[in-house]
């Protein structure tokens, strides 16, 4: 194979991985947060017996199920793609990353899958407490899964605890590998991001119902809860993001320079660029709109602080600056919008017009994909910003791709593009269908069909409701 064809094949493999991993991350970023919310609602229902909580849990479990399914099938692809498309990388780093992923499967994937069956289909087969336990277990499983995969990814960003023997990575300290310098920041940032993603999906749906004047009690509860959540999570996320940025400055200064569009090798009193078009050829920015000294202040806590710029490394060692720069701005912009909505929501709540304010409800309802978009943009900053390295400073991406013929990768990439485009359309269609159908009516929940072995959930609930109705009738 000549050089050109080898390079083409490598680029195709990278595009395929970027495409399949981007597609995958959409779904876990919704389900991690949504699983948690469902478990919370179920717990609240058990505690308060307020049926609206059961309605919330029962309604959101359906979009959750289709999202989870998409996450599962697109995730399996990834666990094989390391080997198929990055065989040299797997050989070099298998001893470090393999065990982390083995722990992910052992402690999380089986747990999620094992209890998901009970969570989705076991309403009539187990007691209500056991069902709640299953929902909690699924939620915890999603967090554990995030823990391990973030550990593995963070090690590639800020490798630690390893040694290189005969060109391959071996581990000296597992603790240092897992809790590598960027891991705690990335994990908290990502978990908060998934919570925010789910929060805004639920908020948008509730706002949409209120606009349409449907399912009022249900929608009010959903909107109110998620606005409170956003009020806590969105500012917290900004704070964690700031700490994460400081960590990037420390360990991946070139990535930070790309995020902020800093070209000189070293620069003091760095402005914060609200907008600019970075030009990698001329090594400068066009159309800058900036606040002087703010970047220095944010990152060094000093207006005059010095930052390292892109020219400190050769061109070949820089990432795609415009992509990182704009992705970062998109993410931060959406984050600020989320904070604004949370604060505006509080203000409207105080004024008592939260559920009537049409402009606000409209704004909330278009925020449905905001979390997913912010997560994707954030991951582009992380992953593109690390290039040309696959393991920061140690392994170059282009050096470790499988030596496959380009045609073979073209074929698989085309298949993935076709399959995923089709499935994404289908996913959105069914998601919309479920939302349009609305939550189960309280009366319907009452008439849950009781199965042969109905030991707990349905029977207890139906009985309970029947008692309540009798009570009301008596009064």
């Amino acid at each position, binding site marked *: 194979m000549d050089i050109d064809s080898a390079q083409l094949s490598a680029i195709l493999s990278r595009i395929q991985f970027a495409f399949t991993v981007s597609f995958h991350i959409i779904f876990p970023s919704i389900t991690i947060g949504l699983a948690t919310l469902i478990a919370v609602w179920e717990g609240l229902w058990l505690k308060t017996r307020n049926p609206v909580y059961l309605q919330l849990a029962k309604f959101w479990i359906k979009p959750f199920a289709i999202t989870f399914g998409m996450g599962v099938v697109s995730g399996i692809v990834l666990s094989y793609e390391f080997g*198929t498309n990055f065989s040299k990388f797997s050989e070099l780093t298998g001893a470090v990353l393999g065990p982390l992923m083995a722990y992910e499967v052992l402690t999380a994937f089986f747990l999620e899958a*094992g209890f998901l069956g009970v969570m989705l*289909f076991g309403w009539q087969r187990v007691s209500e407490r056991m069902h709640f336990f299953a929902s909690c277990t699924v939620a915890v499983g999603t967090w554990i899964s995030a823990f391990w995969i973030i550990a593995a990814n963070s090690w590639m960003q800020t490798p630690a605890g390893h040694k290189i023997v005969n060109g391959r990575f071996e581990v000296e300290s597992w603790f240092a590998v897992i809790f590598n310098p960027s891991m705690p920041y990335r994990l908290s940032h990502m978990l908060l991001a998934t919570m925010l993603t789910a929060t805004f999906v639920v908020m948008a749906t509730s706002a949409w119902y209120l606009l349409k004047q449907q399912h009022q009690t249900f929608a009010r509860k959903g909107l109110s809860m998620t606005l409170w959540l956003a009020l806590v999570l969105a500012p917290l996320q900004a704070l964690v993001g700031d700490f994460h940025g400081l960590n990037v400055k420390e360990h991946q200064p070139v990535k930070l320079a790309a995020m902020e569009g800093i070209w000189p090798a070293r620069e003091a009193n760095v402005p914060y660029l609200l907008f600019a078009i970075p030009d990698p050829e001329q090594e400068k920015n066009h159309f800058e709109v900036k606040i002087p000294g703010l970047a220095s202040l944010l990152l060094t806590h000093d207006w005059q602080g010095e930052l390292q710029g892109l020219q400190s490394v050769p061109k070949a060692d820089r990432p795609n600056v415009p992509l990182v720069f704009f992705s970062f701005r998109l993410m931060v912009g959406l984050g600020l919008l989320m904070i604004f909505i949370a604060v505006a929501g509080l203000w409207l709540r105080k004024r008592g017009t939260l559920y009537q304010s049409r402009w606000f409800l409209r704004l909330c309802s278009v925020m449905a994909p905001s979390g997913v978009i912010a997560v994707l943009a954030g991951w582009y900053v992380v992953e593109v910003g690390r290039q040309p390295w696959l393991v920061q400073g140690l392994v170059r991406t282009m050096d470790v791709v*499988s030596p496959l013929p380009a045609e073979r990768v073209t074929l698989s990439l085309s298949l993935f593009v076709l399959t995923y485009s089709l499935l994404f359309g289908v996913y959105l269609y069914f998601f919309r269908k479920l939302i349009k159908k609305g939550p189960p009516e309280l009366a319907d929940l009452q008439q*849950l069909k009781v199965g042969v072995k109905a030991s707990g959930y349905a029977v207890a609930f139906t009985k309970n409701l029947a008692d309540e109705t009798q009570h009301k009738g008596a009064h």
Partner: protein
Amino acid sequence: MDISLFYFLLLGFAILMYVLLDGFDLGIGILYPWFNSDAEHDHLMRSISHVWDGNETWLVFGGVILFGAFPTAYAQLLSTLYLPIMLMLIGLIFRGVAFEYRFKSHSSKIWWSRAFAIGSTLAAFCQGLMLGAVVQGVPSDAIQGSSLQLVTPFSLFTAVAVVAGYALLGCAYLVMKSRGDIQHKAAQRGRVLVWVVMLAMALVSLFTVLSDDLIWQRWFGGWQTLWLLPLPLLALAAARLLYRDLGRVRKSHHNKEQVTEKHEDRPFWLAVSLFVLAFAGLLVSLFPYLLPRQLSYQQAVAPEHSLWFMLPGVLIFVPLILAYTLWGYRIFAGKVEDFEEGY
């Protein structure tokens, strides 16, 4: 015991678990075209919708154990078997999402049934193809050469054999989980499949043993033949019993009698033991290779530090996983009911 041997056996265990568990639910997909009505298709899918996800997790587990414990083999095998793996993944994607969308669709239901059937069959076929290619010995230049190198008469044969084997597991599962017409049909088809599977097993065994002098020596080169003889004999006995049990189920439907529980449940376990025996036979032939005649497990093994790190995880969590998986199956024990509420 040597720790690398432990991981070799663990990998074998993971693959076996995958083949048995996803085997029966892929089998249900393979059987889809043999059932006609929507109601039957609903029933078939309902019988596995709560377990398929867990079953497929064993595939991921096998993959990561290979990655963590034998990175060289993971890299070589996966990049060499590129296209069958990709096609298998596409198949698994379509059948996986069919579980979610089929029950929620009306006009497009037929397409989800097709996606489920074709996806399941494609995934099984690719797995069989890879099995054949590995047993036969993948050509060392396979990654650079044409993908068609992997397609040989032998690998095509093993591909069809695996599809038939999974279908047999699926039939036996249905006999256990269904009643009436579906059970009757599954028993009937299962009997044909017993013949197909036994014939395929015999031919594949014969080919494997004859293809390599070392493998011949291992089976017939001395006293160990006596130790190994039970494998094929037990397989024959299991197949015979399976055939008879399925026959009894079929007959009682003809005579409109109650099927006894023993004959409903036992076929599944017999089909499982057939697979276990075949797998053991394969292990005898291929040991100690991950890639026959090219890469043994000792050559591919990761540094000890990584193996020891995974060990507590394996020893604690694998039993735990088996326990709660069993619990999950017990919750849904008994026949599949058609009026059960989903989520």
